[in-house]
């Protein structure tokens, strides 16, 4: 499909969207987005495109505005200016729930789980939400079996079968983060936002997580956008990297281009050495 036909298709499907000339369908697009906190510009006039099926990393020094960037996409914060477009729809002012329904699901830098519940119960909430039944005051046998089967499936995907009945709050940190990813996965994301998925993990835990992210992307067909500090991981798995610095996009491109970018080397990689 040529760029021109893609443009037309988008225009007919969603007249609100303003797709720009991109190589592929603009899956997630941010147009001149800013977010201010008082006088501080945490995100400053950022424009950003991401294609469906991408595995993209967001990097940048501390205070670069990475988490705010995620908050703007996931709907935790409204932008001060600019527009956020997802899958052809302007979602700038849409609720978190609407975004999740469209397939944007995130995890947090500080693990957000249901600490007093088991792995199974954590994932069950997501599965029931995904099936749209979580307001039901009773559950039939058939439905219950279907729900349980799906939970077991997800637990198998993230390799936690032997810990399914354990209380999440008592699991190792790495496992807790895996549970969070599994819960996010349970609602059927199209775009998964992972905020520092390996933060605070040991080597083997990190390896497990990296493998999981890669498999989600390749086997489950989920588009993944992740914030990460560990450059080995970033350059190891990301297909494309966006570098933020002081709220602005410093560079954007495939790993080899980023690692060669003199600006990035000066502002970020140099500093990290």
């Amino acid at each position: 499909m040529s760029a021109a036909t893609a443009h037309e298709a988008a225009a007919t499907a969603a007249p609100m969207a303003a797709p720009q000339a991109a190589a592929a369908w603009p899956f997630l697009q941010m147009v001149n987005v800013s977010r201010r906190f008082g006088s501080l510009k945490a995100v400053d006039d950022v424009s950003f495109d991401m294609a469906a099926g991408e595995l993209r990393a967001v990097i940048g020094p501390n205070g670069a505005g990475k988490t705010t960037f995620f908050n703007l996409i996931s709907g935790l914060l409204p932008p001060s200016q600019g527009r956020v477009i997802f899958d052809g729809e302007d979602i700038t002012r849409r609720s978190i729930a609407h975004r999740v329904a469209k397939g944007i699901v995130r995890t947090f830098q500080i693990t957000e789980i249901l600490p007093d519940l088991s792995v199974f119960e954590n994932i069950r909430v997501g599965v029931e939400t995904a099936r749209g039944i979580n307001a039901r005051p009773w559950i039939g046998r058939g439905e219950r079996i279907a729900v349980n089967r799906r939970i077991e499936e997800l637990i198998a995907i993230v390799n936690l079968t032997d810990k399914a009945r354990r209380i999440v709050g008592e699991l190792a940190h790495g496992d807790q983060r895996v549970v969070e990813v599994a819960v996010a996965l349970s609602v059927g994301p199209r775009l998964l936002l992972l905020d520092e998925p390996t933060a605070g993990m040991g080597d083997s835990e990190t390896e497990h997580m990296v493998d999981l992210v890669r498999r989600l992307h390749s086997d489950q067909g989920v588009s993944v956008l992740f914030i990460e500090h560990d450059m080995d991981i970033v350059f190891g798995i990301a297909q494309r990297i966006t570098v933020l610095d002081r709220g602005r996009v410093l560079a954007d491109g495939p790993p080899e281009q980023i690692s060669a970018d003199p600006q990035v080397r000066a502002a970020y990689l140099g500093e990290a050495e």
Partner: protein
Amino acid sequence: MTRAATIAAMWIALIALPWWLPLIGGYTALGSKVLIYAIATMGLNLVLGFTGGLSFGQAAYFGLGGYGAGMTLKYLVPSTPLAILIGTLVGGLAATILGPLVMRRRGIYFAMITIAIGQLFYFVIVRWNEVTGGEDGLAGFGRQDIHLGNVVIPLTDVNFYYLVLLCFTVAVAVMWTLLQSPLGHTWVAIRENRRRLQFLGVRPERYVWASFAIAGFITAFAGTLNALLFNFTSPQDLHWILSGDFVIMIVLGGMRSFFGPLIGVIIFVVAQDYLSSLTDNWMTFIGLIFVLIVLLFPRGVFGIFDRRAKIA
């Protein structure tokens, strides 16, 4: 003992209560009162223990249920089932209507607003003399015999106990089903982590509202039985002191456990009944129960055995 065996033993003990309670010096009405309070507190615990909303004004719906039932019998129809039905609706609808004001709050705010709303109802009841009897309470009605086709069941003390036990069973079945359902799972998830749930695309407010409303109905249901217990209801049944008592009964038994409130009620009601016969200073002892539970046994009786109930 397995869980099933324990629960079976509990039901047998409850069914046989009118025989064994007098033998150890109790009285049947005390058994009825315990079960009535158990329904109320287990209902409240849907909000408090399972949804994590600190409802501190629950007595209002309990009392409204009582007035609804009493006034039905006094002014409308002499029918016990109708009195229970109407009372339950009155209290439950009050909670449903006010739910939206409550559902967005958390923690301290939730507590303060529920207390204040409870006091609003208290003052309406206590000042609306012509209808409610005001400070003197509502008297002059009596529970009516139950007519089942040609069979007439007189509501003697023992029969009334069995009516209460039947209601308890129904309420337990309803609450158990709810907590096993996706709705119940969502409540627990809200208690555990509201933000996580929001980012799964759930709007927690609506579910908190549902929880608050359902708890209101169940507490009101208990309130109707309470009015029928002594054929009397008074504004003190809506007062925040009773709300506080309900909460401590739940915490005493264990707020994370389904049957925890029942245990808490048994201990609290029996202790109050016993202590207030023993000493003028029983309030100090009740107060000490509050303080000691909070400081030493925050997980309650059930929590001691349940490693899930983490507090600090």
